[in-house]
């Protein structure tokens, strides 16, 4: 038993994880828990899950993100997209550092090689770094605050943190949090140029989605953020290094992906689990996932 903390614990933010999905293309058996492996796809086969309409111009990260949200929301394959007014109480927070770099790099090369008429207006949304969050909002009719976090290795848990802030501030009743990175050639080049990642750990395309609601509103595993006075000895921790050997590095997706794994552990009967993400350059963040 840990000794009681001598000082009053600082306020802790919490939220319930009412749904989640991990979407990691090509994961080897044994890397992710079997129950979490699904039809993970990022190419044209994403249409098998999402339906064909509207996918053509989407980049790899956006397709991965849409698949993860589709699965987290429990929608059947090729279910018709929601219609009607957007839900103003449903927010979207995306964490991604490299999601649109391929589009930006492509446009830069096209303009240099062939001049301005060579670029396609279809690529216009991808020139802006918030393209994924906007696409999720449109696809699933989510009209609440819409954020994209690009803070590097901490971005995944920063996104969870900001999602909790949206709930606490009464800006949303439900937040769809997505961590996602692609693995195209430009993204891989940038990943290799990170100072904060050990050499030789490859970038891995992945998406993960958590649906967060106020902790008191739902019967589901709970995440807690804040300072973990008295909790430093929580028995297990998911860290990026734990998956690096099998999975590679998922960078901005890592915090959300690891939180999803911890939620799966807790749902499987496990005790409180710490989740840690970050690197020596960008800093470190952590949270706790516990049973209700």
């Amino acid at each position, binding site marked *: 038993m840990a000794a009681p903390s001598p000082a009053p614990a600082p306020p802790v933010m919490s939220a319930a994880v009412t749904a989640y999905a991990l979407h990691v293309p090509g994961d080897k058996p044994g890397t992710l828990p079997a129950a979490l492996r699904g039809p993970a796809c990022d190419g044209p086969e994403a249409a098998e899950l999402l339906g064909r309409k509207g996918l053509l111009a989407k980049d790899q990260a956006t397709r991965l993100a849409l698949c993860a949200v589709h699965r987290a929301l429990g929608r059947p394959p090729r279910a018709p997209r929601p219609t009607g007014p957007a839900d103003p109480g449903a927010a979207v927070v995306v964490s991604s550092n490299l999601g649109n770099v391929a589009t930006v790099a492509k446009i830069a090369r096209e303009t240099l090689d062939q001049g301005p008429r060579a670029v396609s207006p279809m690529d216009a949304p991808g020139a802006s770094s918030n393209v994924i969050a906007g696409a999720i909002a449109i696809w699933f009719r989510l009209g*609440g605050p819409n954020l994209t976090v690009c803070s590097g290795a901490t971005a995944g848990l920063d996104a969870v943190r900001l999602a909790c802030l949206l709930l606490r501030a009464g800006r949303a009743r439900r937040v769809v949090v997505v961590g996602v990175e692609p693995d195209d050639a430009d993204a891989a080049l940038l990943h290799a140029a990170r100072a904060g990642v050990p050499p030789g750990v490859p970038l891995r395309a992945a998406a993960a989605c958590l649906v967060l609601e106020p902790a008191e509103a739902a019967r589901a595993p709970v995440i807690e953020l804040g300072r973990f006075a008295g909790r430093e000895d929580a028995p297990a921790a998911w860290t990026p290094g734990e998956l690096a050997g099998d999975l590679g590095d998922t960078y901005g997706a890592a915090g959300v992906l690891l939180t999803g794994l911890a939620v799966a552990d807790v749902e499987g009967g496990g005790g409180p689990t710490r989740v840690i993400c970050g690197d020596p350059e960008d800093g470190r963040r952590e949270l706790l996932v516990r049973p209700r």
Partner: protein
Amino acid sequence: MPVRIAGSAVRSCFGDGPATFAALLRAECGARPLRHQDPARSGVEYGYEIHDPTPGPFRASAWLADCAREALAAAGVDPAARRTTAIVGTGLRELPAVEAMAVGEARFRTESLHFGAALAGAVPGIGEVHTLAGACSAGGHALALAQDLIELGEADAVLVGGTDAMTVSMLAMIGRVAETPTTRVRPFDADDHGVLLGEGAVAVVLVPDDPAGSAGAAGRAGHVRLLGTGLSCDAWHETAPDHTGILRAMRDAFDRAGRAPGDVGVVYAHGTGTALNDPAEARALAELFGECDPGPLVTAVKGAVGHTSGGSALLSLAMAVHGLEAGVVPPVSGLRRPLPEAAGLRLVRDAPMRTAASTVQIDAFGFGGVNAVALIEAA
């Protein structure tokens, strides 16, 4: 609960905050032939650049770092002494470096794409630095979350930043979709449409609004309060705005601020000069202020400073603070004949107008349908 705007700092094509506000009052236009970009690549010849005699990489970071130091000094806030978080809104991050890499011109540490290291170096003691990509309303979203952090006791002060330099890719897209090339931005103009990018950075320091006066100990108190910022996402189209989504953000701002549209004396509109934004925004404003007689004065800064993307909301905010302090509203630079949708709006034209108004609305909308509307008030 309102928070206090304790300090701000600006970089635009005109220079610092006072220089930029003076240019607005003169209805100047800062657009020039582009010097740091090659029109043969982007198809765009004009823009509102910050002219650097010796342009290096990572210009958006450098401007932001300068603004952060200045704004914190103006506010009297020492990040080493108080829990100070930073939230930076940006449309394009440091994507100019990615574009240079793509054509073989640069190698750099990927961490430089976001603003954590730039701010940690510029303002020692700063806590967490969040980089939010939110297109042209990113700064407004940062402002909203900053107020939440203070209200919920998670930070003692927040440095809110917005910064963007031009990218070839965004210029090329703007050029590609323009009906005809343009040489300047004319917000709410009926005859001339088209947006041009601006470059700029803004930093604003928020602190708790302490009526007991301890704000003095916590930082030199500014004269203006941030009442609240409303957020919404259209969830309708990736690049075209929707007036119902815009209205939701406006109404959210009034709900959070505890004010009614009739309280507002001045609106700093988003006003991009495009055929998509301006009619949608004018329609939303007409609906919001439909019951108000005579309704607020409406101005917009982009005719003077261009579209500064992630910095845009905070640049309008900083100019609105200058305006409140001076009791004056700058005119819309470049406006000749207003759009039919804006016929009922009291657009400020040609020359500044004096006003005793104490409550100001600031609009910002962006790609992805992301909307942020802030309300500020003279203290």
